[in-house]
């Protein structure tokens, strides 16, 4: 019961509670002025009819459509007398009810085929009123439900599904070996450059020549003197090139003598000071 009252509060029109609602209407009828002012509050002619029907204080099933039609027409004429503006659809309903009333009062004429009789039209109106009333009740019942977020509550702290991102990695042997090979080759180039330190510099060649020539007294072919350095192909070129340049330099300085019988023939060198 307490729920009922709460909902009446929540329902702005307060129509959920039948008795309170009826009271309102009765109050309106007691004071015509107020009723007319309240016409604004009616949601159309059917709503007004339903309100008037309530004043008959009978079950909607037993309602007197004729009396209701008269009530409606009285209401409209009263409103007109007060020079109130009445929406068109209320007037359309009034015209229709006047027609219905005449149909109900006059003895049934042999009507044209398919044209409904007065009783049928009355039943139709009664049905529509009942149906609207039923929907009103239903809406009140709906709003009186134990509603989620108002009367009953879901978990306030739902625990969300966590997405666990799991990565699976893809790599194939080819990529792996290619990566290794390329990076090793890359760094191998770098380390070759470091090996160039073993390449003979001019200074190194001079020192080596001085040492080697010191052990000989006579003309000796340069490549024989350098034999020990010419085994390794890597070293051969640099040893020869640097020694030759060094030989020329030392000759120019007067420390060495060079001799060659013809182009591309072996180059002979000897220590000049010894010879002298």
């Amino acid at each position, binding site marked *: 019961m307490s729920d009922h009252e709460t909902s009446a509060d*929540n*329902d*702005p*029109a307060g*129509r959920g509670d039948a008795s309170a609602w009826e009271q309102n209407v009765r109050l309106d009828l007691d004071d015509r002025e107020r009723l007319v002012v309240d016409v604004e509050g009616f*949601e*159309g*002619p*059917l*709503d007004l*009819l339903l309100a008037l029907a309530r004043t008959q204080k009978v079950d909607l099933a037993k309602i007197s459509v004729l009396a209701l039609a008269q009530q409606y027409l009285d209401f409209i004429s009263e409103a007109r007398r007060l020079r109130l503006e009445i929406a068109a*659809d209320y007037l*359309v*309903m009034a015209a*229709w009810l006047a027609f219905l009333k005449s149909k109900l009062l006059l003895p049934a004429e042999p009507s044209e085929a398919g044209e409904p009789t007065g009783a*049928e039209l009355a*039943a*139709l109106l009664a*049905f*529509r009123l*009942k*149906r*609207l009333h*039923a*929907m*009103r*009740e*239903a*809406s*009140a*019942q*709906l*709003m009186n*439900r*134990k*509603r*989620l*977020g*108002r*009367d*009953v*509550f*879901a*978990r*306030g702290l*739902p*625990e*969300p599904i966590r997405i666990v991102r799991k990565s699976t990695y893809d790599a194939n042997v080819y990529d792996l070996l290619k990566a290794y090979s390329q990076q090793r080759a890359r760094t191998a180039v770098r380390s070759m450059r470091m090996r160039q330190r073993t390449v003979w510099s001019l200074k190194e060649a001079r020192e080596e020549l001085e040492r080697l020539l010191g052990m000989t007294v006579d003309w000796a072919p340069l490549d024989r003197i350098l034999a020990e350095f010419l085994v390794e192909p890597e070293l051969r070129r640099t040893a020869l090139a640097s020694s030759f340049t060094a030989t020329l330099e030392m000759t120019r300085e007067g420390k060495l003598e060079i001799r060659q019988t013809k182009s591309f023939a072996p180059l002979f060198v000897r220590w000049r000071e010894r010879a002298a």
Partner: protein
Amino acid sequence: MAEDETERTRPRLPLPLPSNVIALQSTDRREKLRIVEALLFAAAEPLDETALASHFVPGEDVKVLLEELQALYAGRGVNLVRVAGKWAFRTAEDLSFLLEKQAVEQRRLSRAALETLAIIAYHQPVTRAEIEEIRGVSTSKGTIDVLLETGWIKMRGRRRAPGRPVTYGTTEAFLTHFGFDSIQDLPGVNELKGAGLLDSNLPPGFSMPSPDDAPDLREDEDPLEDNPQQEEPLGDKDDEAGGGEPT
């Protein structure tokens, strides 16, 4: 008094399970109940049996587990309920007074909107013209917009009739909010049906339709266009309102 209330709110099961049932359960069964309990407790939305079953081996009777869990929570501060054909934990109905602070401020619906909602619920699928016919008054676009905003109603399709008016129906959120397991649980639906009051057309005495929120379109419904916004039916109010005039 409190006892009475607990009894009243105890869910469907005819008899409370004896309190030693848990102790008798096999550990395996107890683990299964724990899993269902944890899933439903954690979920932000009601879960259906299929979703729950996906955590078990095929063939597991989740429904039996759910009913056992429901019995376990009957009379507790939190109950296991069925809504919209799914399962969810909810605070016990009789404790609503406690939780007023938690209540989220809900938009007050106008009387017209409430009536329209009820008509859509009971008469769905229903067009705006039919709603107006029942209410005997034209329904403003705003009223339907407000209801669409609540998420309780949706546009379902178009009636295969002149003007191809949009048909409206209720959503799962409607069932969830009002705590219905299915639309057939609407209060008084059978009585209304019996009295012929769910027929949007006349006269009574013919076969009565039931409210139907099944998403499948009826015979006389066409799908909404891909882009219903473009042919928004609520704009052309004048055309449709014609159906609502008193005849």
